[in-house]
């Protein structure tokens, strides 16, 4: 029972972080129809900036419980880059999709050098910060409190985005713009503003994900590419542009990976892509995606 719980928590923790990045990717594609390869770079940027902000907090003798809010604030603050990048992407909205891929891939390379310039080439870590939050113990079961908080934060963000998209006026405007940009524009929606907001929200999801995960991991220049591959597996499984798909895809990838590691470690990576292949064959639009007629 304890072992099963540990494995389950391991899978859900990985899924929680993956969901944030994949959700940003889905949101941007769903509304703007941009396949944003740079989502992994936002994740890395959040991780590096999170380390810097926590180090500032430590230098300012902040209490340890404050570090988690500091990390979330660091991720949100990075949203400031969203409108600038969206302005850059605006130049290719009406062009062939290959331009999107080229431009967002160029952003990946640019961000890699930006990270190198500000934080250096070596991986950065946050010492034992995550451990300072202790453990939650229920009988024989235990889980690091920090991991539980990250899972909780991810669930809250997922619920918040769901409520925002489904139950608010602005959410309806976003969905309407996603369905038919020209019609929304004709009805008076400021699509340019909507796009800037959506892209910024997508950016913040990635940066918050990176900032939240870094106390349990490390920030490295390789992390954007590492994550973006898994994020795209999530998107393929869940269906491009679907938030429910991002949630389901992240859980499937996280739990499949955890199960593979336990039962046959050699299949850790293969297991995920077997699911991707099965989904592509059986349901090409993904579990929650809309089939293209």
């Amino acid at each position, binding site marked *: 029972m*304890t*072992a099963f719980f*540990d*494995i389950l*928590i*391991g*899978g859900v*923790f*990985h899924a929680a*972080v993956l969901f944030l990045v994949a959700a940003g990717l889905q949101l941007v594609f769903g509304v703007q129809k941009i396949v944003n390869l740079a989502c992994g770079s936002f994740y890395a940027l959040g991780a590096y900036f999170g380390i810097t902000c926590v180090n500032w907090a430590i230098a300012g003798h902040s209490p340890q419980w404050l570090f988690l809010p500091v990390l979330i604030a660091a991720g949100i603050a990075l949203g400031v880059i969203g409108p600038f990048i969206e302005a850059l992407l605006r130049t290719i909205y009406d062009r062939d999709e290959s331009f999107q891929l080229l431009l967002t891939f160029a952003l990946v390379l640019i961000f890699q050098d930006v990270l*190198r310039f500000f934080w250096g*080439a*070596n*991986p950065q*870590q946050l*010492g*034992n910060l*995550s*451990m300072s939050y202790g*453990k939650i113990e229920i009988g024989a079961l*235990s889980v*690091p409190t*920090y*991991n539980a908080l990250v899972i909780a934060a991810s669930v809250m963000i997922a619920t918040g985005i769901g409520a925002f998209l489904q139950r608010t006026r602005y959410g309806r405007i976003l969905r309407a713009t996603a369905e038919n940009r020209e019609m929304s524009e004709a009805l008076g929606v400021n699509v340019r503003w909507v796009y800037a907001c959506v892209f910024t929200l997508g950016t913040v999801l990635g940066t918050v994900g990176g900032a939240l*995960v870094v106390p*349990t*991991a*490390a920030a*490295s*220049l*390789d*992390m954007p590419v*590492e994550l973006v591959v898994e994020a795209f597996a999530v998107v393929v499984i869940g269906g491009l542009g679907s938030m429910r798909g991002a949630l389901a895809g992240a859980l499937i990838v996280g739990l499949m*990976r*955890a199960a593979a*590691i*336990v039962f046959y*470690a*050699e299949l*850790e*990576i293969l297991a995920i892509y077997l699911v991707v292949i099965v989904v592509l064959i059986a349901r090409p639009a993904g579990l929650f995606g809309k089939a293209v007629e």
Partner: protein
Amino acid sequence: MDSTRRTLLKTIGGAGTALAAQPYLTFPAIAQNRPLRIGIIAPKSGIVGTIGECGLRGTQFAVDRINAAGGIAGRKVELIVEEETNPKDSLERLRKLVLQDKVDCVQGVVSSGVSLAMGPVAEEMKALLIFWDGTTQDGVKETMANPRYVFRSTDNECEAVMASLLAIKYWKGKFATIAGINPDYSYGRNNFAAFQALLKKFNVEFKVVADQWPKVGTLDLTSHVAALKAAKPDLVFSSLLFADLPVFMKTAHGAGLMDGGTKFAFPAAGFQHTLLKKEFTPEGMVFGHNTLYFDLANATPLQKQFVQEYETKYKDYPHWEADRAYFAMQVYRAGVEAAYKAKNAWPSTEDVINAMEGVKVESLGGPGQMRKDHIAEQTFYQGLTTHKNRYDFATLGQVDTMYSDQLQKPAGADFWKWIETAQIKL
């Protein structure tokens, strides 16, 4: 007249420098026509960036000392540093160093993937190449049985062999189940296999209850740790060595893997020693510092000077890549100077190579030599960790020292057969 006086003053100055340069030999100015160019290929970024950086600092320390002492056989040393990345691009940089920069020697390389590709090319180009840490083994099988221009470091498996021997020495009879978490490439797989082979050799009965193979750079190891914990091993053997190692230790500590008296053997942990904080690194684990243990009580004056300068300059403590880089430079220096002395003229590359075969040098971590088959022998340090020190990270309480002739196969031997038949002392 002025010119003559200036030349005379230069000669006197040069002689003074050379005289001050003990224990280096002195050489006439005839050889000092241009600096010796040495190309360095080392990673400066990514997950192995810290390794390359430490190696570059070891090289710089060696070159500063050599130049302060008048150079190699009277010629100052000039470094040309190129970045080690993937094999294809690193090969292009090797060609650039040899063909365009016309370097006298190339040193460096951390990744075995790069060194495996680079070795045959260097042979073809007849370029003298001394690897810091890269090997020319495919798995544990030597791919360049009789290299002429390529010299390499000790076998990668030396670290695992020593950690295995220490685990047996300290814990034989105290464990029955083992688990491994090792990087998913030949280094990690060979190390875990070597550990098991040595357990069999020393008649230790064991059962492998888990083996994890995260790919290098995996920074979320929560599920791997959960799998290890579920298997309840008595001993965990891990060759993790890059940024993933501190992440593993933190995750393992957080998950309670270290709570139940589990034993840990980490042959390559020294690469990350300053990041392995006391809070999550247990005492009493087998910990490999390999060819340089920075806090060695009876270290040589050379090591003490290096560690002190390193701490002052970089606010950090060096690991064994600095030693490998220093060793490579000293082997080259010793080879050039021996060849020069024998010939009494500037030696050719072939003369230098002949002189390097069998040469003995004092490296940062202790004595070492270059075998006739172009494979290094060096002094290794591992031991059991302690928290009783002035640092915020674990160091060695019990230090064990072994020379690599007890840890690596002799020239031409098969690694697995050597393990079976070698007279290895615990």
